[in-house]
């Protein structure tokens, strides 16, 4: 019991001094990076005040800066610092038994991925530890690795559970390097839904060639994802698709279409909207009521004329909350 107390006290003292040291090291590295950024120089131009063994502290500082700075100079600084002081350890530790070393390695690749390490990153995407797999996937996607993006899409389509949230997120962090490849992979039927899922979460400045086909897919899941994409992206005959979607049997398609027509003059659809106010599905009733409210005076008149039942509930609800 006494020895345990002594151990606790000894641990406190050691931990305190280690923390202090680590803080000091991070401050030295941060100051150095600030200086580089202010003087617009690369690490080769100014002597590095740190030591090679400060690798964990350096990685932490680089990760911190990377969250806040996005300019080109920073990209150059972090690439050079990583190649000078970190990449050696990252390559050495990529297949070590200890997960902390593998995680360090993956994090280094994620900060500044190099083309020659693509093979390693893709391999690390299979790591049993998520804490290693995640930064490795980020590294491969940042690099624009075709195999990496394929792996991420495959995981979204086939891995059970909610892991697809993470992969989707990683793919969306670098949309420009990912977009063309996602379009390419969408030709594979087994990856189609995963590609649509990714494409439906953001607005793309480029056309999506297969979108029209998927809007008419017999599979309601594919169709509803395609309508979600349509909501965010402009195509020819967009309104016609929304019009058609108003009569679709699928709840997702109909809801997206009700939202979609609000981007256009709505008078021609008042009949359909009023009808949808009585739909048995709450999301449809709610979307119809929201659309009517957006339509202005005329729409509000329709909402106020609902006196009882399901349509009255929806009309009241949007007037209070939306």
């Amino acid at each position, binding site marked *: *019991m006494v020895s*345990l*107390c002594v*151990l*606790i006290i000894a*641990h*406190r003292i050691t*931990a305190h001094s280690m923390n202090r040291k680590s803080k000091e090291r991070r401050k030295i590295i941060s100051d150095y990076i600030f200086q580089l950024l202010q003087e617009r120089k690369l690490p080769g131009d100014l002597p590095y005040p740190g030591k090679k063994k400060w690798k964990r502290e350096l990685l932490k500082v680089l*990760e911190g800066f990377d*969250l806040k700075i996005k300019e080109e100079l920073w990209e150059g600084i972090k690439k050079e610092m990583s190649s000078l002081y970190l990449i050696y350890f990252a390559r050495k530790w990529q297949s070590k038994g200890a997960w*902390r070393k593998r*995680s360090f390695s993956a994090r280094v690749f994620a900060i500044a991925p190099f083309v020659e390490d693509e093979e390693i990153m893709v391999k690390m995407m299979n790591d049993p530890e*998520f*804490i290693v797999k*995640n930064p490795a996937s*980020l590294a491969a996607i940042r690099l624009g690795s075709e195999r990496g993006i394929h792996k991420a899409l495959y995981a979204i389509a086939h*891995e*059970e*559970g*909610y*892991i697809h*949230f*993470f992969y*989707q*997120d990683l793919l*969306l962090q670098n949309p420009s390097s990912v977009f063309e490849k996602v379009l390419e992979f969408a030709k594979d039927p087994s990856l189609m839904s995963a590609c649509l899922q990714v494409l439906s*979460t953001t607005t793309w400045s480029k056309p999506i060639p297969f979108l029209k086909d998927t809007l008419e897919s017999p599979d309601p899941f594919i169709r509803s994802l395609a309508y979600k994409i349509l909501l965010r992206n402009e195509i020819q005959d967009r309104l016609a698709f929304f019009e058609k979607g108003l009569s679709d049997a699928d709840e997702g398609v109909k809801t997206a279409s009700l939202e979609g027509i609000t981007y256009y003059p709505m008078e021609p659809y008042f009949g359909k909207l009023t009808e949808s106010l009585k739909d048995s599905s*709450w999301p449809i*009733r709610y979307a119809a009521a929201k659309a009517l409210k957006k339509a202005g005076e005329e729409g509000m008149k329709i909402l106020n004329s609902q006196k009882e039942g399901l349509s009255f*509930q*929806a009309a*009241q*609800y949007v007037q*209070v*909350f939306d």
Partner: protein
Amino acid sequence: MSWQFWIELFFLAYFGVVNVVYLIFLILGSFQVYKRFNQVQEEDATLLLKSNSLPEILFVVPMHNESANILSNFWNIIKLSYRYKKVIAVNDGSTDDTLDIVLKAFEFIEIPKVYNDLLPTQAVKKVYRSKTYPDFILIDKENGGKADAVNAAINAVTTPFFVVLDADTILDSDGFEKLIRPMLVSSKTIAVGSCIRIINGCNVEYNRVTTAGFPNEFFPAMQAIEYLRAFFLREGLNLVNSNYIVSGAFGIFPRDLILRVGGYSETVGEDAEIIIRLHRLMKELKLPYEVKYLPDPIAWTVAPSGYKALSKQRVRWHRGILETIWHHKRVLFNPWYGGFGVLGLPFLTIGEAFEPVVEIFAWIYVGIAFYYGFLDLEFFYLIIAISFGFTSLYSMVCLFIEEMTFRKYPSLRSLTVLFLCNFVENIGYRQMTIYWRLKGFVDFFWNLKGTRKETIAIRDKVNACKADWPK
């Protein structure tokens, strides 16, 4: 050999075996805690914070006469940095002003009830939505107990996960984000619990614990030590996937699964019952699964500080354990249910449920032996060492591991008080808990008729779930 020898051997063997099991779980648990601690250090939660595609999580807060703490609890949830959240407060027939306080504080407006009740519950009187926080819903229903309130909330939403939170529990914002990942990365995870700490004695600012401190009052201080011990035991059980409880104060579950298994049951220990039912069903359906208990100290709860409240809680807990074991007695010692059947549930039964009975008989025997002059001093010292001494040593080791990892009690004062309380616990407090748990036994037998009825209802839920499960 004399009959005294056999009696003494029984008591010593019982405490010895239970202690060895505790020790094994402590060793296994400490590895888990150390690994998780390193993971938390290594992982960058800002990536999660920036994420635009995480799933919505529902926070369910059942409330019955909770006017004292309820607002701080809601502010705590609303201000969590995890963006994709919905909150449902279920007023379970409060007789005080809980409902009025909440209605006023968050500008609730009555809305239509647009969902179907997939799980049967007591009648829902009204549904409200907050005008200031549109993702905050309030369900006002007839009293039906905590399980009924949680079921009412599950009916109302379609989020993939829900968190059950007691009305007197508050969360750490940073810690909560780190807890999402273990739930999401494996489809096998069917429940996630986390370490609960006691809020008494901590500094709370803006509904967050800013500095953890050790409770100043006697009962909460004792409970802080108990919580520390229990948490290492659960960590150990985690490694053999035999955890039998995810604390009712904080737990994350997938909604669809809970719907499939028929929701929470109206039993006293509903938090343990749902976990044991999930174990049972997963084993019977031959599905891979994991019940995770994470050491991250993210939830802080109010510990009862008075004798009456604490005694009520402990009697209730022990009755809950006994009822749960009764409901799932077919799992007990049944190798068909794997590690949970031969290790987890038997340990709950022998090591926890029957422990107060054995201990009280041990002391009755010591008393009789002393009175009639046949007390063997060697036996007396041994029993003191393996019951009292072991508990103190065990608590110290737990404290040491805690200190090496998450270190939630940073001040030296807290550590010193924790250390001292560790010794005081065995004199008085331990005996009180035995008394309360024995009362739990009495309550259990007194209500056995109702328990039997509930057992049939649970069996029906299990069978219905098995029949409906997709092939």
